[in-house]
């Protein structure tokens, strides 16, 4: 899956949580919780949705790596790239 596809998936899922926000227009380096005003329940729903759609494990300790759109895309991209070798530690 290309970077563009991941971005699209994340934008769609964020849009489900915040339908009135123009997700494509937000700063991809800003804290998602701040820019689209989501609470911890929303964020958990976002993680659940991404988990279900892309079939990747996102442990709770990794949540800080997904707080901006750009960082989330990078994190998920790396997860997907290594998903065929689930026991190999993720490259930094």
């Amino acid at each position: 899956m290309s970077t563009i596809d991941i971005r699209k998936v994340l934008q769609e899922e964020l849009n489900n949580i915040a339908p009135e926000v123009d997700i494509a227009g937000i700063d991809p380096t800003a804290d998602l919780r701040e820019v689209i005003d989501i609470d911890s329940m929303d964020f958990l729903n976002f993680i659940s949705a991404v988990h279900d759609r892309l079939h990747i494990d996102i442990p709770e300790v990794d949540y800080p790596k997904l707080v901006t759109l750009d960082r989330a895309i990078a994190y998920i991209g790396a997860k997907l790239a290594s998903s065929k070798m689930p026991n190999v530690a993720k490259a930094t």
Partner: protein
Amino acid sequence: MPSLGSDMEAGTLVEWLVKPGDRVKRGDVVAVIETQKGAIEIETFQSGEIEQILVKPHSKVPVGTTLALIRTDGEAKPAAAVAAPPSVPVGPPAALPAAVAVAPPRRAPPAAPSVAPGARISPAARRLAEEHGIDLAIVTGSGPAGAITYADVERVLAVAAPEKKRAAWLDLEAMRTAIAAAMARSKREVPHYYLEHQVDVTACEQWLAQKNATLPPANRLLIGALAVKAAALAARRFPAFNGFYRDNKFEPAAAVHAGVAIAIRGGGLAAPAIHDADRLSVDELMSSMRDLVQRTRAGRIRSSEISDPTITVSSLGERGVEALYGIIYPPQVAIVGFGKVVVRPWVVDNAIGPRPVVTITLSGDHRVSDGHAGALFLAEIGKLLQKPDKL
């Protein structure tokens, strides 16, 4: 038309989910009513057979109006002469004890209900589908016996048009009016006192981290679930904070139905109940909270959830500030607030170290309790949070 709040005088019946002859049991959702709090699904408290529908969809009627007649299981079919005189809705089987508030006018035309040929599709759902060109064959019914309801069509519409995801009847302006009325009444009538208590939640955070590490995201817990559980257990032990103040006297509640304050995007607030919150496991409580938050934000709360919270819990979550001082939602007599968890210097075993700390507040009703009892109640919540595995 039951009252879902003392400020409510009338409600608009949006849709019937049952028809005469249908069998219903206690707790079934039988109708949808529009209120300032959004659409409310009305549940019946009476099991039996729907005898007659007395209020047509899109009618606005005063609180207290009989909406329908239900023949309870023990009752014999009345003689023809007595059978449900249309103009006298008294005497016969129980009315639906469910109710609601004033509502803005519906934009849907008040067309005469069309007859559903065979398939169980509510007239309002059929109209909505026709208005938007939705093929009913693709709609999955969630009503009694798989009947297609207004909400089912709405769900399909939401998928088809994501920009219209917020339910059309979640009227934030009307909701603000309802909040204003309830809060103004509270400030007028309820002599509040306020207490606060800072609690080290290291035990909660460690327990949650350990538990969540083994769970898929759909089953993970938030500290908010522990907060509600601890407040509910404390409310069971301190009955002066759990119940209703009505007609100049306090009525303690037998069960703990925790109203959970839920913010709605765009500036709304509702606090529907999680029933028997003190008896649910933390996992059950968490899944109830997720379900309730989702339905509240979509404008789908059930009548019993909106009408019967016995105490309210308001939690700011991980953002925001350290403390909130709630206003009691009448006729309740207490509201517990949880601020966001912050790391603060804390003394443990005579040494100072960083600890996650939450400020818990209580707004109590001086007609029912005083600061001494309130302090014990609040301290109990703090103690319960030290043993999250026992919650």
